[in-house]
């Protein structure tokens, strides 16, 4: 018989747990909410009562207007989107292929390749920057989207492969055998199996996108030109010039954060799965 605690005791314990969790939740998003609130205020409103909601006198959308009109903002947004999507797409593709190969043709070499990628997850690739820069200069890829995409795929692929391996392992052989009996070649068989690992693909995509969108290091080194600058670097430089236009500054921070917060809220399950599967194994 399981010992049941008293009803009162149980309720008060539940209350205590919720109290703590609410406290932490508030600590996590409170500062973000404060910034979002202030993005809708006039400069006076921002500084006279930073924690107050905007009222009729302090409400203003000028920050957003000026943030968007700022010459580079839309272009930076586009650059970040193109680089993030491009690198994520290639990462997913390469990871699926390699993971399928590793699970399907499980030879000794396959084990070695898997081990190679496992070590790769922890590799501090930024320390290779001196050579990466040299390479990009000699390929004439400096200040291009391609430079960043290539580097990001190289960094993201190990985790992607390891994650996809755990996914491909769950697929039974029946389907593959059936496809082969029907005369499908190895690549066709792969294409038939891929739809079955869609949840894994979503996890890889989610976990690949985040650090790429937010990266500051490689844009700072490979794409400093105004035409190929990313959003994160653009905002960093905006913050760095000690502008007095606090309204536009705060609005552009909010605009820069929104895509990933939205994406994460929508795909939080896949994301969390990717994170715990990838590093936990």
């Amino acid at each position, binding site marked *: 018989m399981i010992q049941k605690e008293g009803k009162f005791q149980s309720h008060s*314990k539940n209350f205590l747990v*919720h109290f703590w969790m609410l406290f932490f939740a508030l600590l*996590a998003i409170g500062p973000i909410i*404060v910034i979002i609130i202030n993005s809708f205020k006039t400069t006076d409103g921002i500084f006279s009562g930073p924690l107050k909601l905007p009222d009729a006198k302090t409400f203003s959308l000028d920050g957003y207007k000026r943030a968007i009109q700022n010459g580079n903002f839309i272009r930076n947004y586009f650059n970040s989107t193109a680089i993030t999507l491009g690198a994520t797409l290639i990462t997913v593709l390469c990871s699926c292929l390699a993971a399928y190969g590793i699970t399907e043709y499980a030879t000794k070499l396959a084990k070695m390749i898997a081990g190679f990628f496992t070590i*790769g997850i922890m590799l501090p690739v930024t*320390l290779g920057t001196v050579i990466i820069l040299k390479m990009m200069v000699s390929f004439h890829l400096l200040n291009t989207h391609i430079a960043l995409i290539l580097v990001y795929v190289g960094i993201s692929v190990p985790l992607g492969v390891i994650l996809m391996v755990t996914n491909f392992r769950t697929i039974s052989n029946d389907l593959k055998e059936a496809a082969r009996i029907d005369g499908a070649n190895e690549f066709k068989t792969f294409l038939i199996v891929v739809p079955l690992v869609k949840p894994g693909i979503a996890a890889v995509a989610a976990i690949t996108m985040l650090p790429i969108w937010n990266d500051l290091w490689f844009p700072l080194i490979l794409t400093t030109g105004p035409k190929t600058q990313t959003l994160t670097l653009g905002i960093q430089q905006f913050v760095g010039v000690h502008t007095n236009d606090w309204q536009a500054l705060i609005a552009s921070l909010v605009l820069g954060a929104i895509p990933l917060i939205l994406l994460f809220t929508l795909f939080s399950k896949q994301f969390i799965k990717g994170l715990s599967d990838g590093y936990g194994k």
Partner: protein
Amino acid sequence: MLRKRQRYLILFSLPALAFFIIFAVFPLMGTIYISFFKDSVFVGLANFKFLFTNEYSSTRLLGAFLHNCEFFAIAASVQIPLALFMAALLTSGRVQRLTGFYRTVLFVPSTLSVVIVGFIWRLIISPLWGIIQYPLLGEKATALPTITLMSVWQYLGIPLVFLYSALLSIPSNIIEAARVDGASDMRIFFGIKLPLIAPQIGIITVLTFIWTFNGFDIIYALNGGQPGPDFSTDVLGTLFYRTFFGWDSDQGNQNLGAATATIIFFIILLGTAAYFAIVQRRLKVSQL
């Protein structure tokens, strides 16, 4: 047959391997290689000797290393117990329907870029807004701990998610059995759950070590490449950037930069290897 399988394996793995080797492994190896050169002349360990013995650069190197140790010590000792506490609450069975909500909300800061995190916190603690009067970022003693705590705030969700799934994967019959024996929540947590997830706590500590010693973003976002006040927030990452690229009057030098990167790489390698050789093995043994 084996040869055919081997050929397909290589064919399927090739694109991923190519990207990984060309843009991650090769640059790292190449960096170590050119750290033995000076303007394409082989100089042996001269670059390292310079970094370790030149008065200015050795001071900076030692300073950055110690700041990294502090960064790691604060991050690990605050972040991991806090994440463990939250994960324990989330898996206590007392949160129920709100579990997903809390998990998502607590992770949101990790989706922001450091540029945004740095700005948000600098504004909140700035005397301009008046919530905190003390110039936390302006004083040598408090600047680095303050930045570390910002980073803890941002990335808390990662160890949380990690420990949360570790706790969830504990078979429920073990917990039930303990409960039948009349063990309290506290006892179950410290006596059963905690020892069982010790290896995961170890892994997240190593990852924190790698991430903090490889860290650059939050410091650069707040204080630039020559992080003040008076280098008190300079870490190995910013030192590497400065040595390689230069900053203000400091001229950049790619061989010295490569040597700095090599030193950082070996610090990370040694720390990680030591951990796996000494701690992780023991944890697995004690589990049996």
